[in-house]
């Protein structure tokens, strides 16, 4: 596909295709269609050289049929050629009808409705692949850079047989990288809708400066409890782990939530902690796979107290709750932690003596009943004394309950919050991201 025309062409392709699929349905059948598509360039770098270049054009159509109190969903990749794709779409419909006949009734099924129409397009400015290779590599010459440049259009669209029609398309790039000095590394991320070599250079210079600090001798830090400053990227990593059931109504009801005691009202967090979904960030569409549109803001934790849990209409029906149009997995799609009162420039001074943690790695719940989380420090993590960086540490393992770390141990959050765009590319480039401040936490527990 020609990169420049992808979003316009696809919109027309999808509208025609879905018109054909939705128009001929007999009474009693309802269909919801989802389209996920991308036209992407991936450049993988090691030692500031291209290890692999991959371009991917893919369009996935999902068809969900609801009939006789039963439902099934079948998806497939499309070719981009209209006649072929219409045949493929009709074949999905036939197969879905067969499956419906084999299934028992589903009492928690939510009938489809028209959830309205929306249209959001965020065009970007992205140079040709060949020019980008030069631009990234030449600017970083002399650095040992490893990472991934990803760019192109990402589309998410939804229509149903009740007339709803949503379209979300954006063009963007992300350069997720790290710089190395021997085994020591600093992490950088440069992302946006328009590529600018000047901005790339200044982003790179900031990361180079961080790497310079790591040249100081390594400070040996033993396992123990340390006052710690978590930079926004480290907080973002923790926020991401809350996607695995912590804020989900169905996970709570099914005994799978690591925040069960919080959801039950038995535990609270610090009054300084405010967590919400905010689709106003414009990072992800507010409609879910059913085309239901979430409120712009959904308060999840307010002043450390429980507000809403993310609740899909299906969970709402099963458990007698009210839906906030959460997605199928009831994971946050555009979460933010609200800033606090700590000026970022005073972060080291307020930390005093302890650990500055730029990034965390490989987090997992180690005791879900007590919301205890384990994980590793990574990249530019340093020992700080009297507000001054002494030197980098060897990576440490933490193991700590969030009821403590985000509870009485939470000293403050920074006044500045950063957007951390989602750069995951499992299966396809993802939309979305998180907005997070830094956090100062007392007596954070390190075990290994």
């Amino acid at each position: 596909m020609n990169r420049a025309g992808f979003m316009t062409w696809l919109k027309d392709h999808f509208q025609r295709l879905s018109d054909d699929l939705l128009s001929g349905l007999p009474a009693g059948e309802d269909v919801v269609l989802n389209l996920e598509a991308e036209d992407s360039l991936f450049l993988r770098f090691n030692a500031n050289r291209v290890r692999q270049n991959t371009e991917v054009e893919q369009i996935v159509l999902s068809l969900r049929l609801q009939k006789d109190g039963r439902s099934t969903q079948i998806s497939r990749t499309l070719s981009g050629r209209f006649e072929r794709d219409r045949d493929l779409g009709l074949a999905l419909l036939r197969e879905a009808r067969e499956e419906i006949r084999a299934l028992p009734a589903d009492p928690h099924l939510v009938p489809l409705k028209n959830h309205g129409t929306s249209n959001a397009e965020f065009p970007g400015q992205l140079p040709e692949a060949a020019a980008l290779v030069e631009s990234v590599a030449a600017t970083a010459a002399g650095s040992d850079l490893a990472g991934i440049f990803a760019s192109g259009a990402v589309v998410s669209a939804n229509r149903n047989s009740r007339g709803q029609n949503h379209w979300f398309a954006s063009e963007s790039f992300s350069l997720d990288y790290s710089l190395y000095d021997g085994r020591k590394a600093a992490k950088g991320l440069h992302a946006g809708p328009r590529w600018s070599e000047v901005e790339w250079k200044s982003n790179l210079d900031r990361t180079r400066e961080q790497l310079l600090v790591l040249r100081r001798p390594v400070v040996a830090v033993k396992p123990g409890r340390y006052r710690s400053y978590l930079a926004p990227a480290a907080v973002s990593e923790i926020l991401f782990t809350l996607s695995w059931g912590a804020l989900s109504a169905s996970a709570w009801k099914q005994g799978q939530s690591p925040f069960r005691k919080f959801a039950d009202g038995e535990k609270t967090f610090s009054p300084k902690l405010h967590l919400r979904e905010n689709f106003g960030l414009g990072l992800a569409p507010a409609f879910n796979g059913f085309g239901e549109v979430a409120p712009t803001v959904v308060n999840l934790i307010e002043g450390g107290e429980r507000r809403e849990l993310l609740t899909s209409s299906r969970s709402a029906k099963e458990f007698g709750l009210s839906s906030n149009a959460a997605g199928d997995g009831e994971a946050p799609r555009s979460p933010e932690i609200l800033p606090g009162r700590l000026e970022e420039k005073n972060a080291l001074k307020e930390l005093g003596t302890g650990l500055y943690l730029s990034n965390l790695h490989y987090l997992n719940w180690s005791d879900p009943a007590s919301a205890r989380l384990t994980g590793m420090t990574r990249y530019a993590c340093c020992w700080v004394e009297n507000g001054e960086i002494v030197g980098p540490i060897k990576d440490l393992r933490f193991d700590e309950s969030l009821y403590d770390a985000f509870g009485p141990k939470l000293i403050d959050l920074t006044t500045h919050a950063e957007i951390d765009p989602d750069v995951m590319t499992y299966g396809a480039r993802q939309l979305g991201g998180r907005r997070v401040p830094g956090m100062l936490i007392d007596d954070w527990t390190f075990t290994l």
Partner: protein
Amino acid sequence: MKNSSEIAEKWLQGARQSADWVGVRFIREKTSSRTVRNDLPERNQSFIDEGAMVEVMADGHLGYAATADLSAEGLQRAFERALRTTRAAARHKAFAFSPAVRPKAAGHYRSPRRLPLDQASLAEITDVLTAATAAMKISGRIVNRSANAMLVSTESRFLSSNGSDVRQDFDMVLLNIMATAVDGRETQTRSSGGLNSLGNQIGAEIFNRDDFRRDGERLGREAEELLRADNCPEERTDVIIMPDQMMLQIHESIGHPLELDRILGDERNYAGWSFVKPEDFGNLRYGSALMNVTFDPGRHGQLASYAFDDSGHAATREFLIKDGLLLRGLGSLESQERAGLPGVANFRSSSWNRAPIDRMANINLEPGAFTLEEMIASVEKGVLMTSNRSWSIDDERNKFQFGCEHARLIEDGRLTKTLKNPNYRGLTVDFWNRLTAVGSADLVGTYGTAYCGKGEPNQAIRVGHASPPCLFRGVEIFGGAS
């Protein structure tokens, strides 16, 4: 698939004129996920993933473009796109590869199976899964009962300008069956084989109603039992690890650190680097003399059994670690050229839309001579841990911490009470050198996961791990909050 490879054969004749080497890999994969929860259909989803990856070599550099338009024009457009970017990227290439990284390959592989996977009807599968969830309901304390089966059928074909023609067809089933019990403030989950760990190449014969019912009943009982169990103590003690946790231990602390692309730094910005250095091969005493680890894609019916990797390299069984000594890394032909080290046939992609990278396949711990009774009898005080539920390790694969669903206390050579929330932590090489007994061949459990994540762009791939139970001396263990 047949139609498109005929088109491709013709198209290749033309394309080969413009590049040093051209290859195309077709994938058609159907994944059906069937979930029953509390005896009701919860979710039924299928995905037909069909497309082609066109690969070109120009100036010693390999580049890729993926398309789902399998017409001759679609392939040609992908080819031109790949060639244009690959030529530009070749000016900044990481390495100048020789043509030997794409050997000529011809052959066919098919998963072992007694019944084709599509012979299991949706009605039958739903019935079998419902039998499992119904059997879990041993009391009102079992609040959630779920059973999921993921059926995967893959057809792949690889053609290249130097005459490769490889067909590989796979049938796989992955199961996730679990019961959650709640009593007051206590919640415990028991699953079959641990989280996302039960997977093999197999056909429709796996859907045996009695097996599912028995498994469901056991999981319900064990979840209930955990509600009343004591917390795992915090101490340094002997640990017997059962195969459904050995799988994770092998995966995280042997498989990943031995990947040559990690050692070469490709993964530094995502999955991470490795504590293993090139000079460690042939020299590092990775574990005790009882430790024998193989790369074994030829083993019958494991999740990552195959005959060729995605570069066309024929797959053979190799010892990675023999009698505790590190011998060989998980490196494809490309990594072998770059590192000057021996490797294996492990250049694998997650689908048609990703380039191959160094991956695990089946990474297995070879059996020893001990019965489980002998291992238990040799422990004065310790614990036996089963089924993974939590995992975390640093980016050089050294400092790990793992948690299991279920444990039993061992006192004076006998299994005594059940323990909940068992966890252990350690350092990779120190830990494997504590290996004191390895179970015999009849105790080997075969597990696999579809979610090994790695690569930029990211790829989740299927891997298999077979292991007997093993005994480790003097491991740091601990429990949960009481």
